[in-house]
């Protein structure tokens, strides 16, 4: 059959070279995209951290006048927005990109060009939202943008428009990435890798992606409504026009609560990979961890009103949401016991990743427990909008998500680059971060109990808050020094390379089966999977009988038999994403259309902020990107 297909005139030749700027702009390689996600979001991490330090400097003493109230509002708004949307989410995405294809034994994600699109939209969206600093009118309505404070009446500048449009642009990137990883995990697994044999980090990625795909549209709705309120004068959250500001809280937290699980589940996945590796035991109760993750993801939808206990929804709603909030602590607790069970009786090695992971368990437990405290509406009425809440979510997000991510960075750095991060500097980094973090946020519990409100730019001298605030500020400084040690470590380790080899930690999952750093095509031969933690059991076939003794379950081959099977299995190569048949390694060609499409979307977003003509200027780029993309073959004919 003749295969006729439509052709779109190419403005530029398709990028081919493996080096240079075009190789990055046109790349569809999940590893390069993961690296770009990591670098860009780390830069935003430094920006967000600087914002936090400025706030801590202002609050270090009573009646300080280092920073005015207006700038302080902008700082806490952008600090929250940056850390949630531009740091933790994309840093997790960096791990998804790097690891998911490696962990499931694939050559790339299911939609490599869509993956590139996600990154470029994220990049432009993050620049858009931070561009407001340049215009001198940064968002100042809090990271949750409560109406009516975020409306034009109380917030006439462009700041909150930047915020809301920027979030919508970022939402597009998140949804595209979420869809991509769902399909990748379901459809691109290596032969023999059933759903209950995929690594636990992959499971958590799948659950996170489902949450992203279902929750981000809700944020998009809130964003569109606030944007039309601000730009076109609609009345969604304007009580003078019949709207209701409480509706903003409903829709925002309807997104916002699943969002906190989007932030924490990837870190839980990382920790669930690090602990078994350094305890040299399989994860205790793998199905429990998976089901607990799934239950958290489901129940996470039914707890949003615990952010609104003091709004006055009535006793019935408060009771119901209080119960569901307390219940969701159960699956979270299940996971903590699974991690403890993993450590129990293990042959523990205390390398840097392990230190970070163990700290994660401790800090996350503290943050989780203070969360259960304000699951009770009367208690919450006391704690709402105080530093107690600030302490709670920093223990969960810094002590939880960020420590998990650092654990992952130290753990997988040898896989990403081929060399270790320096262990001594790593331990210094860990120690400084732990000391600084606890010194910064533990006093906030007492400050909150003592009634210090959030989001105030200064406080009176006679409140008795100075000591704790000073401690918190010093803690923030130490935490910042810890991060600087990390940056130094990165450069130091690059200068003084200690080569790691393919499997430095005696790992359990498939990413350790390929070389470090992995080749462009990830695996020379797509692995055949027989067991959960297959790579471990291939290395240590004698341990199989310890874990698989049910005869109906897995027929337990002796070591010799296993070797035979492996050898037989080796020549079989799955085609993966490409349909080009068996045997040949075909990777998708590079494409510049994702970049062009994302430029169009960024211009479109900028148009909603500035004026409608700019929206029109974005449309040609979008059409160019879409048409060119849809008519571009995955691989050019040779």
């Amino acid at each position: 059959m003749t295969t006729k297909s439509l052709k779109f005139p190419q403005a530029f030749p398709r990028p081919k070279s493996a080096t240079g700027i075009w190789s990055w702009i046109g790349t569809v390689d999940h590893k390069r995209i993961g690296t770009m996600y990591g670098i860009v979001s780390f830069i935003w991490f430094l920006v967000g951290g600087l914002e936090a330090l400025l706030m801590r400097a202002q609050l270090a003493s009573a009646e300080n006048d280092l920073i005015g109230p207006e700038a302080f509002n902008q700082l806490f708004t952008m600090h929250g927005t940056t850390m949630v949307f531009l740091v933790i989410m994309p840093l997790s995405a960096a791990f998804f990109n790097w690891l998911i294809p490696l962990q499931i034994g694939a050559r790339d994600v299911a939609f490599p060009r869509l993956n590139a699109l996600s990154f470029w939209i994220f990049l432009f969206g993050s620049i858009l939202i931070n561009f407001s600093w340049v215009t001198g009118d940064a968002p100042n309505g809090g990271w949750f943008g409560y109406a009516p404070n975020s409306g034009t009446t109380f917030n006439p500048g462009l700041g909150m428009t930047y915020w809301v449009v920027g979030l919508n642009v970022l939402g597009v990137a998140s949804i595209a990435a979420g869809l991509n990883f769902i399909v990748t995990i379901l459809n691109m697994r290596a032969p023999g890798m059933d759903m209950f044999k995929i690594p636990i980090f992959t499971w958590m990625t799948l659950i996170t992606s489902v949450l992203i795909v279902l929750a981000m549209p809700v944020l998009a709705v809130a964003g569109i409504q606030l944007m039309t309120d601000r730009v076109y004068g609609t009345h969604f959250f304007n009580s003078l026009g019949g709207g209701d500001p409480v509706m903003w809280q409903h829709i925002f937290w309807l997104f916002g609560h699943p969002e906190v699980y989007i932030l924490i589940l990837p870190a839980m996945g990382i920790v669930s990979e690090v602990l078994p590796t350094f305890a040299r035991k399989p994860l205790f109760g793998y199905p429990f961890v998976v089901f607990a993750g799934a239950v958290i993801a489901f129940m996470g939808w039914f707890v949003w009103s615990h952010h609104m206990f003091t709004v006055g929804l009535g006793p019935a709603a408060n009771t119901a949401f209080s119960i569901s909030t307390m219940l969701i602590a159960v699956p979270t607790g299940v996971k903590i016991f699974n991690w403890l069970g993993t450590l129990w009786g293990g042959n523990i090695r205390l390398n840097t990743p392990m230190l970070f992971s163990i700290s994660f368990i401790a800090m996350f437990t503290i943050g989780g427990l203070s969360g259960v405290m304000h699951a009770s509406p009367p208690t919450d009425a006391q704690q709402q909008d105080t530093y107690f809440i600030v302490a709670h979510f920093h223990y969960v997000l810094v002590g939880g998500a960020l420590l998990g991510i650092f654990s992952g960075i130290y753990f997988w750095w040898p896989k990403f680059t081929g060399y270790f991060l320096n262990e001594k500097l790593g331990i210094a980094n860990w120690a400084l971060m732990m000391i600084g973090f606890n010194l910064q946020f533990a006093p906030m519990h007492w400050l909150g109990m003592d009634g210090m409100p959030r989001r105030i730019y200064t406080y009176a001298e006679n409140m008795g808050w100075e000591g704790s605030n000073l401690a918190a500020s010093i803690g923030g400084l130490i935490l910042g020094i810890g991060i600087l040690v990390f940056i130094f470590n990165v450069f130091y380790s690059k200068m003084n390379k200690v080569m790691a080899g393919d499997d430095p930690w005696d790992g359990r999952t498939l990413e350790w089966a390929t070389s470090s750093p992995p080749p462009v095509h990830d695996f020379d031969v797509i692995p055949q999977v027989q067991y959960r933690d297959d790579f471990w059991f291939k290395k240590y076939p004698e341990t199989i009988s310890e874990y698989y003794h049910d005869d109906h379950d897995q027929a337990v081959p002796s070591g010799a038999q296993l070797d035979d099977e492996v050898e037989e299995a080796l020549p079989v190569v799955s085609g993966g994403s490409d349909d080009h048949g068996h045997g040949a390694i075909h990777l998708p060609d590079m494409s510049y259309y994702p970049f062009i499409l994302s430029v169009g979307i960024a211009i479109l977003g900028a148009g909603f902020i500035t004026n409608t003509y700019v929206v029109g200027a974005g449309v040609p780029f979008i059409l160019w990107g879409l048409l060119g993309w849809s008519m571009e073959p995955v691989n050019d004919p040779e």
Partner: protein
Amino acid sequence: MTQAAATEHHEPVENTSTGLNSRKLMMWAFLGSDVMFFGAFIATYLVYRGKSLVGPYPSEILDIPLTSVSTFVLLMSSLAMVLGLHYVKEGQKNKGTIWILVVVVLGAIFMGFQFYEFREFAHEGLTPRTNIFGTTFFILTGIHGAHVTIGVAWMAFMAYGSHTGALRKDNALDLEIAGLYWHFVDIVWIVIFTVIYLISATDGPPPGVGPTILH
């Protein structure tokens, strides 16, 4: 048709872990995402139903006969869509092209109805800025209209592809995926028609407030 013909119709089994096509799987996941998107807008509409402080109120302005016709047009475009896919899958190029073109035309007619309706409403004094009904109504139906516009463009692209022979029996999946999107836009309208038009059309002014439009 015979048994043999039945097996011919079977989709090729994909070389993926689930045996399902990745793009189709992604389309369904995206539709799940879009369910939440429209769900939030419809929920907003329902929460704000009957909360308008000033007119025009729905009972004064909604034109059920007109919208019934446009609803019917969109429903029939779904039928045309599924027939177009049927004929493309059967390899009947011309019939397939014609039915896809019918989808484009019916979709465009629907957009025309919506444009006319919006203009009429604005003429009678209902804009997104007038009251909360105007806000929720225009943004919800406008977002739906944007979906229809994208769908019409996509279908026009498909019709062109079918005409030139780039869309064939063997890659009918491209059309099937576009069709899923089109049908989804249709089912959203099924909900909107019921909730905004048929159910709300009797929502008048609050007690004690006279009519705000004098015909």
